[in-house]
């Protein structure tokens, strides 16, 4: 793909509408109608474009923060499908369903098409002018900018803009993020996001880390998992043990799923360490002292896990090394979340996994493009500031806090207190609805940008210690609507309002990016002698820029002194059940809820579609007299929602679970009014060290409303039964098969 940019952009123009017409009319037309259809030819056309043969352009997925590298399949100027980039170390040519749905974010009929000032469509000049007016009247510290996670050149530009405003009020917010994990990892391993080598482990014990579903970088982990399960591996087929109160997708794939009492995961980890010690693993003295009280018997009573099982787990871990122990959302969403995570990390240290299956990852050499990761604690700060009236102008980009903040935080009320709220948005979501000015964003398939993933996977055979990468995001087709803009373009325009001189050379974000990349040609893997255009085109066509990263290191030792495990909070007699907001692989925090493929693809475990549900253990349900399809009210101290009850055996009897991401009041036709928003009833309880919202600390009570519906789901009336058919989904015990010679 060595065409200059002009041609390429030209090519991205949609070729006529003939192609669409062809696709649409299906089986109806059997007659041959000469001269009815119009076949539009290009005016000019690069030689690599052949009608009816697809071109692939590399880009980066924007559906979640894992930053998978994708290829857009482009035909006649339309992007049809996203496929994985085979050269990517992250997703290696694979894609998840969420990523596939990116095209629906792009083609979504509910995208905002013009800037909206107080609900009225305005021109960009007017919109940007309004921002300028408002900013001119306020001081730097009165401006707050709320973003989601960011990285790459947009991040750099954003940093410049905040500097230009003289504001330090950047709040990076993600509704669902491994924020506690980062802090705990920093303590335990010395780095926030080490590289996990599931593929090298013989045993993986995951404490609520849904790494196949929604945790950190699921496509990468799923591939590692596939390796891990191969009997032909030198280590043999790996064993997965999942410990969590509510079965996640990963739990559903475990060899052993342990439904633990919510909040006691750390204790179980210590119990396992204790059992390992009794089984003959040499424990450092401090650790041995710390875990001495956590005998399997006691832990068994507290966690609800039979102590034989703890011992068995310890035996397994002892016998099969290396192993990998992961701590995830389910273990961390408590007041004592980071202690849980630390206790779990300690298990890795005890087992000697650190350095083997927990590897150091490198970071990008340019700190200004390194990812800013979001957390919920920053939202608290913003909320407090807004409540105190500190901020006059608030920007919001890539976040939807009005939807995802607990109602008890009263975020919306505080948000509207600000004088002028600007939302950069693709949809008219809840936050955009509350904003004064809405700036329509390009979709990720129309936009330029670069992405640096937080979880840095390394390709096979590379120098993994120093491998870091930057991925390109480039337009896969011409803009659908002329009046949307990329976030980079908007930031640049805003910067020009502040520092016109510095940025006058850059016509748009593309030229900024182009310039920035070529300036750093050598660091990005080029030679000084390379022709600029050729280098640019080659870089773009690869989509991935390997960087020589800054090597990190994992700390080999962990002191038990860090570990003070406070007991799990008990339940309330008025609210006897623990609410576990479930993060599903496709819905995540709900930002993609308006993509119909995701709404229609069944939840893997309950197979429910197009609605939220309340998972209740059959025993609990029997106690409460609840049957499947009953509309139940889930009430916490902070509010209540109604949804349909689904009897689910994979949940702790003292817990109920409701998926997050549903219950939008805005966004669009596919998301609006579908399900209930469980974020709204979360109690404002925070993790004690990080200040993150403790997602799993809400206690609820369940009551029937008397209504009953037929749940819309994929599974039939038998639920998961095979009705005695001998050979449908067959399972075999590992010792009954010979996996070592399989092809």
């Amino acid at each position, binding site marked *: 793909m060595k065409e200059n940019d002009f041609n390429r952009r030209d090519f991205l123009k949609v070729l006529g509408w003939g*192609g669409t017409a062809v696709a649409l009319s299906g089986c109806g037309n059997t007659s041959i109608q000469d001269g009815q259809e119009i076949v539009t030819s290009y005016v000019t056309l690069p030689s690599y474009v052949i009608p009816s043969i697809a071109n692939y352009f590399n880009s980066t997925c924007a559906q979640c923060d894992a930053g998978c590298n994708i290829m857009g399949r482009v035909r006649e100027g339309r992007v049809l499908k996203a496929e994985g980039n085979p050269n990517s170390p992250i997703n290696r040519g694979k894609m998840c369903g969420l990523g596939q749905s990116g095209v629906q974010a792009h083609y979504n009929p509910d995208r905002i098409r013009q800037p909206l000032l107080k609900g009225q469509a305005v021109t960009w000049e007017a919109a940007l002018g309004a921002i300028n007016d408002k900013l001119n009247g306020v001081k730097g510290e009165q401006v707050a900018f709320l973003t989601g996670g960011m990285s790459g050149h947009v991040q750099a530009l954003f940093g410049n803009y905040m500097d230009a405003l003289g504001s330090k009020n950047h709040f990076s917010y993600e509704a669902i993020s491994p924020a506690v994990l980062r802090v705990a990892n920093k303590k335990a391993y010395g780095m926030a996001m080490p590289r996990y080598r599931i593929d090298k482990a013989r045993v993986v014990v995951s404490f609520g880390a849904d790494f196949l579903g929604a945790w950190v970088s699921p496509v990468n982990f799923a591939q590692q998992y596939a390796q891990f399960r191969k009997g032909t591996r030198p280590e043999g087929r790996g064993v997965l043990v999942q410990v969590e109160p509510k*079965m996640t997708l990963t739990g*559903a794939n475990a060899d052993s799923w342990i439904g633990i009492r919510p909040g006691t995961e750390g204790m179980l980890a210590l119990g396992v360490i204790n059992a390992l010690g009794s089984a003959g693993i040499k424990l450092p003295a401090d650790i041995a002292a710390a875990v001495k009280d956590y005998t399997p018997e006691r832990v068994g009573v507290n966690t609800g896990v039979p102590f034989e099982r703890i011992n068995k787990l310890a035996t397994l871990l002892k016998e099969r090394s290396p192993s990998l122990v992961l701590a995830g959302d389910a273990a961390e969403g408590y007041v004592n979340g980071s202690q849980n995570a630390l206790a779990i990390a300690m298990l890795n240290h005890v087992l000697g996994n650190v350095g083997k299956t927990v590897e150091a990852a490198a970071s990008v050499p340019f700190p200004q493009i390194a990812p800013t990761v979001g957390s919920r604690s920053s939202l608290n700060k913003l909320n407090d500031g807004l409540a105190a009236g500190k901020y006059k102008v608030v920007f919001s980009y890539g976040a939807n806090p009005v939807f995802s903040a607990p109602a008890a935080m009263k975020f919306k009320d505080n948000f509207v207190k600000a004088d002028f709220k600007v939302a950069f948005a693709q949809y008219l979501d809840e936050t955009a609805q509350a904003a004064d000015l809405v700036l329509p964003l390009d979709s990720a398939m129309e936009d330029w940008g670069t992405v640096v993933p937080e979880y840095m996977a390394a390709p096979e055979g590379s120098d993994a210690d120093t491998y870091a990468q930057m991925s390109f995001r480039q337009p896969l087709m011409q803009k659908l609507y002329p009046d949307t803009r990329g976030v980079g373009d908007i930031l640049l325009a805003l910067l020009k309002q502040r520092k016109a001189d510095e940025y006058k050379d850059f016509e748009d974000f593309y030229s900024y990016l182009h310039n920035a990349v070529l300036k750093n040609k050598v660091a990005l893997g080029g030679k000084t002698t390379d022709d600029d255009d050729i280098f640019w085109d080659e870089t773009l066509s690869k989509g991935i820029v390997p960087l020589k990263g800054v090597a990190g290191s994992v700390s080999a030792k962990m002191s038990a002194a860090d570990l003070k495990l406070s007991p799990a909070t008990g339940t309330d007699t008025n609210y006897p059940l623990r609410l576990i907001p479930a993060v599903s692989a496709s819905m995540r925090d709900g930002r993609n809820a308006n993509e119909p493929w995701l709404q*229609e693809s069944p939840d893997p475990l309950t197979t429910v579609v197009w609605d939220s549900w309340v998972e209740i253990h059959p025993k609990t349900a029997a106690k409460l007299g609840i049957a499947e399809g009953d509309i139940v009210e889930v009430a916490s101290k902070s509010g209540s929602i109604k949804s349909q009850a689904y009897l689910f055996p*994979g949940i702790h009897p003292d817990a109920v679970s409701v998926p997050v991401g549903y219950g939008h009041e805005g966004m669009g036709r596919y998301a609006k009014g579908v399900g209930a928003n469980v974020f709204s009833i979360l109690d404002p309880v925070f993790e004690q060290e990080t200040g993150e919202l403790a997602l799993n600390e809400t206690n609820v009570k369940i009551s029937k409303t008397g209504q009953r519906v037929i749940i819309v789901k994929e599974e039939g009336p038998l639920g*998961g039964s095979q009705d005695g058919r001998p*050979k449908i989904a067959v399972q*075999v015990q590992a010792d009954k098969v010979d996996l070592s010679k399989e092809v």
Partner: protein
Amino acid sequence: MSVSNLLENWSKFRHTHPVEDKGHPDWEAYPSDIKWAMAIDLDACTGCNACSVACYAENNLPVVGKEKYSHGQAMHWMRIERYWDESESGFEVDQGARFLPMMCQQCEAAPCETVCPVGATNHTEDGLNSQIYNRCIGSRYCSANCPYKVRYFNWYDYPTTKDVWPSPMNEQLNPDLSVRSKGVMEKCTFCKQRTYVARNNAKTEGRPVQDGDVQTACQEACPAGAITFGNLYDPESKVAQKWQHQQVELTKEKQDKDKTEGNRLRGYRILEELRPYPSVMYLERVRESAV
């Protein structure tokens, strides 16, 4: 012509399949060197639905919405089934759930083919179970006779139904295959539009189709690489090697290995005993009993 054809090729027309010969009746003109087949490793499958969404994207599947879904009118060619381990007392969850991706099994002796009154579904020379949308008159007998229930009927005219492909979503539609109108049966085609291109390119280059020339959309997407697709007649292909290693033979309704107790292989085909000779081999899910 056809009567003379009948008399000339009588014996050919009396051949049965798949036991007697290797595929297409016209094998003299077209020596059947391709038999598309699949192997799905249930031990690798995580049930994540990526394949299903990829199928929606590739094959112009309509999103029917909640109301029609509730009537069971969903159009997922690839569906993920979730089973639980069963015991006397109900479902057991200690070893997770069992996921099973289920799509058209492209049976060699497909029950659906014989019953179509207009011959809209046939067996192709490359071993697929073809479904010709514009020939279909919608008697739905094929679906009635399909043991796997993997055929999906267009109960409504989805191209013109509200919110199925509202503009501009229709621009995502793949022009390589038709968008089905109402009253037509459809099903998984093993991404025929892709195999077509692969065969075409191989022919132009004057070589046989090689392993890796073509991937189905589900295979391409599957993060765990649970799906293997390829030419079963090509001994070099991965799928053929898998079938061979698992000692699963296409033309047997009861595999030899199953006659011996305690074989340590895990390949099987679903509902093999009904003798449709499915082209999809599943590999049993493995679970460790040590924990």
